[in-house]
């Protein structure tokens, strides 16, 4: 219940539901030949506190391009995933960012990762100035928060936690 709640630099909180965490965790690259995986983060911005909850995450779709050290996610399938959640949510569903895996114990974002994140922050889709980026290594999960403050883009690491066995 209280696992996967993180305090952000703004003193707001981010919660990742257990279900979302388990979906992401099921893709960590423990085998020598397992490929990178990823998806989108979908959830709520809370009325009473402005805290964030990642309620759902999508999984790799058949059209996504998966390699050992590379992942390309098409909108296809992930848009359908979002639309379904949107339809069930009385318009309270937001695209909150991206997750993917790395074949290293403690993950570090690549140049490509940063490039993508900056692009996503630059063109917000739902008038939301905050996105989260999660990378799951083989033993650690790290969370970055990206903000677009009137065009000033800032990305910072906000949490790192051990992935339980």
């Amino acid at each position, binding site marked *: *219940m*209280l696992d996967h*709640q993180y305090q952000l630099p703004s003193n707001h*909180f*981010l*919660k990742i*539901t257990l279900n979302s965490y388990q979906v992401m965790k099921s893709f960590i690259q423990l085998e020598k030949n397992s490929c*990178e995986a*990823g998806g*989108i983060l979908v959830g*709520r*911005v*809370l*009325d*009473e*506190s402005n*805290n964030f*909850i990642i*309620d759902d995450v999508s999984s790799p779709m058949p059209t996504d391009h998966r390699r050992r*050290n*590379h*992942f*390309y*996610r*098409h*909108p296809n399938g*992930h*848009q359908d995933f*979002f*639309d379904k959640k*949107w339809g*069930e*949510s*009385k*318009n*309270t*569903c*937001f*695209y909150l960012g*991206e997750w*993917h895996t790395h074949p290293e114990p403690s993950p570090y974002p*690549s*140049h*490509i*990762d940063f*490039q*993508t994140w900056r*692009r*996503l922050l630059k*063109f917000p*889709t*739902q*008038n*939301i100035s905050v996105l989260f980026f999660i990378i799951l290594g083989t033993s650690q999960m790290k969370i970055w928060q990206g903000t677009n403050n009137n065009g000033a883009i800032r990305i910072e690491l906000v949490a790192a936690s051990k992935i339980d066995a």
Partner: protein
Amino acid sequence: MSHCQKQFEEFHDNIKLSDEDSILKEKRDIIIERLESKMPKDAKSYSHFNQGSYAMKTGIKPLVEGKYDIDLGLFFDMSKDDVGSPVEAKKWVYDALVGHTNDVTMKTPCVTVTYAAGYHVDVTVYAANNSDDKVYLAKGKLSTPIENQKWDESNPKDLIKEIRNRFPNSDDRKQFRRIIRYLKRWKDVQFSDTANGKPTGIALTSIVYHNIQIKTEVVDLFSGKKEYRDLDAIIHVISSFISQFTTKYELENGEWVPYPFVTVSLPVSPYPNLLEKMTLKQLKVFKDKLEKLLEALEAAKAEVDPSEAAKILKKQFGDSFPVPSKDDTGKKASAPAVIPSSESA
């Protein structure tokens, strides 16, 4: 990190029952009329007033439909020496009421009229005009020998005034009363299968009276706009009260067994201990339940999702505590997202 203020206020609307409620007024008026027409000729003159939680604006709806507990106070214009005994004064009231329903009994602190519908009215008798300016409550049953009957110093009007004026600010007062009502409903839910050994409503009211700190949060730094935070206020009351417990030893089968012990005084003279009738075992049960309540309150506060937090609170406060669906806790987006592509390595 939820406060569930919206849910707490909805809970309050669900459980509160005010003095102005016509159901209570009707039932009280029937007794008042009966007293007026049937009071024995030799009774002293009296005036009546609303007593109890409804008068203090801390009344709640009964958990069992219709099981109201209504209080009516009678101030007799006499000193306690103007009548032979406390029970003699109570008998004026008893004689006026007996036969009104099938069940009219003289209990030690009052005369109780019970209705078949399940509710009852407690009528209390006071000697209100004494040379020491104090008010005395007549105590004793029909069968109580005169030497065991008592006049207890007790001024219900002072108590009502004290509770109603605990805070000068009317919004602060409202938070104070909300906390009392939450705790009273909590008691009804958590002690629902217990006949004896529950803390009384006035004991809980006094616990809140002695331990409350008004809790608010500034929600707009520019205007300084504040909102009340009932969850923080009740956490403060409970943890402050739990910290006052001490240990008392009782001899059981030749061994000294430790028990938690605490007292709660009425906020007005003569400041009696309102938990006096609870045994050490009952006090222990009460403390255990308070600790579970505090644990739940803190878990709810630590939970980011207000929907999950409300589920935790509902287990303590019962079904009248609303649990919002997840959709009702989030901000509305103006449009659905257009999902971009992304590349990672």
